[in-house]
């Protein structure tokens, strides 16, 4: 299945583009995307799936959009 991946903040350096398509097997999760990109497994890794905050082990569907980011903040 094809997933649109967006990387934010410090995670941008893990891919040439900040937004790209990734082919993944059925049952893949945001954590699998992070692992494939070499993003370390820390508590600072959060995921959005289709704009909604989701656990890293959420099962993705074909066509989903996944954002990986750190829970920082701003104003």
């Amino acid at each position, binding site marked *: 299945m094809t997933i649109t991946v*967006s990387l934010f903040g410090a995670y941008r350096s893990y891919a040439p583009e900040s937004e790209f398509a990734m082919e993944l097997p059925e049952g893949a999760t945001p954590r699998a995307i992070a692992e494939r990109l070499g993003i370390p497994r820390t508590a600072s890794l959060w995921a959005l799936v289709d704009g909604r*905050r989701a656990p890293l082990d959420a099962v993705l569907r074909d066509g989903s959009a996944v954002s990986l980011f750190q*829970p920082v*903040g701003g104003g």
Partner: protein
Amino acid sequence: MAAYKYIGKRITRIDARPKVEGSLKYPSDIYEKGMVWGRVLRAAHPHARILSIDTSEAKKLRGVVAVLTHEDVKGSNRFGIERQDQPVLCSDRVRYVGDAVALVGAQTKEIAEKALGLIKVEYEPLPLVDDPRKALEKDCVPLHEGGNIVHELHFTRGEIDAGFAKADVVVEQTYRTQMMDHGFIETEAGFATVDADGLLTVRCGGQYAFRDVTQISRALDYPEEKIRVIEPYTGGAFGGKDEVTVQILLALLALKTRRPSKIWFSREEHFISCTHRHPVEIRMKTGAMRDGTLVAHEVWALQDGGAYASLSGPVLCLVVEHGCGPYLIPNLKVDGWAVYTNNGMSGAYRGFGATQAHVAMESQMNILADRLGLDPLALRAKNVIRQGDIFGIGQPMLMAFGVDKTVEKAMAHPLWAERDRVKAEIDRSRPDNRWKKRGVGVACCFQGSGLGKGLPDYAATTLELSADGAVTLYQGTIEIGQGSYTGIAQVAAEVLDVPPAAIRFVGADTKLTLDSGTTTASRVLYAAGQATLLAARALAARIREVAAKKLAVDAESLALADGAVHTADGSRSVSFVEIAAAGPLREEGIFNIPVAKEEFSMGLPHLVFCSNTQIVLVEVDTLTGEIAVKKVVAIPDCGTVINPINVEGQSEGGIVMGIGYALWEENVLEKGRFKNTGLSTYILPASWEVPEIETIPVEVPEGSGPFGARSVAEVVTTPTAPAILNAVADAIGVRFTELPVTPEKVIAALDKKTTVSHRDHRDRRERHLDCRHGSTRMATD
């Protein structure tokens, strides 16, 4: 504008009654039998190496349950929103007097307090960095690995030198703003429990429950799925509870003691340990042509972040983004630094850097107007950003924006249009008016809504038609006193046609509500409101579908009204109770704040903005130096007004906060130590100092917001201080560039200005002050 039943109506807050009656429990109200009181040992020095910590005597004290140090923390022992550089409990070094060194849990607060005095900590003082300029120097002692610069930003746009060459008038000035306390009523408080399954529940005041879970988990190495944070109602925050305060300490105490644990910071502890508004030194050079057209602008900003990063970087981003005010300036150069020092801690504070930037920029505008012989508002009208403009550091203003309309409205207001008459209306026959001079000032501002480019900025609401036919709204943002739960309920009420007060509101609970982002950044009503609108539309559609089957009609023909669904002719209906009989209906609304295409830095730029123009009337007593704000007219541009009471409340509170910023409030530090740590010496505005306030919103609807609403939380406070500075300059001809403008500063400036001896005035002044204020109020001025 469409006719609405609940939108735009003066609806009483849904939480007003329980708050007034005292039945609503704030975090500090929670007590339980057998609980442990937690107290924190703070650092004895602003910068020192810890040589040893001896807790043996404290542990022996009867009634002490636990004495914890860094050795008891199993995780990273670090926290911080942007970077985790602040220790939960210090191990080898302290960097400010608020650093936590040990945590005591005891049967009573008094025993815990006594135990703190029995802990022996041996320190070796280290060189003090108490000046941000010193922190920038290459040979300055580094407070953190990597040096003392937390963040720096440099932008240029256009041709700065060519721009200044075009200018007929150039104004160059340095401004200094002070460290300021948030001044919320409820100091940092919370309560934690751990159940038999290890579920840690923390009820506390905060601004982002979901991020607090991560911060607790990271610092203590405790699994996120075993942490629940509940923080729906917080007794004031203004950015001061965005960073972690009591959360990790509470969690640590509860996990170690396995007993209900309570921590409630004293006012003094709050002053020394928590974040404040950043002191910023801002140098500005602004060039304009003879007709008032702004052509070049240069900004140099140095922000004192204190001991740890917290949100110093993002705050600097907003100093930079708002450094040229809501004006079109084609040639721009901005340089900004945020640095570490041993001066307490600074972080998020309503306005978030835009406030400091506008103090400088709005003063520049009035100085320019004076030099050019132009009306200050006419100068602004000539230069304000309009929708479609490319502005600031180079982003387009694509969304609804009405600062031009706020300026137009201000120009027509009698306080401005007839200001000479208003200034003359002072009764000289009254002896206490003899030395008073009146002035009228104005200032504009703008402020981004949301977190800006480069950060996911999402909101989510769940709406449920429950089995009893009532509507339940689940929303993960926090009611910190701003009235957002009422505004959000009004949005749902309008779609579902149920009274807002009838909606059951479940707020900020990481096990019940969806993550809806931070309660910061002027984003809640806009983002969470829009998520609620989407959820409400989805739920209304589901309700119609179920009703259509029951009534055997087309769903599209049905109307929701008063807790039921009615056929078009009104002849038949089905109640919400009947609709939910087969089980509750639940729908989610997800909204992501639109972002700019361009990105200049993480969090920059914003796409959605609010604005505000304020006119201020002041009276300056040239005998005593006191400044009284007599009237403020506020003209905010926040899109559609969902609830006028809330907008007026925000406006009035923001103005009072701005008055305190301009005239009295300052966290005074000397060699890294706080000098004023109580409300008798840290001077907040009092009720008798609140002027007449008139709030006249300009409604420029934003299509992406709920019913056209944006937000209003921060722009309400930003223009007040510079408008006061401009009014004071109008009154006495003295331009102040350093906040707060205390009576001493006024008198010193007047003495410097006049060649006539003020000796007689001084004698009279002293007598006058003695009888009006007493010694306490003047202690820190």
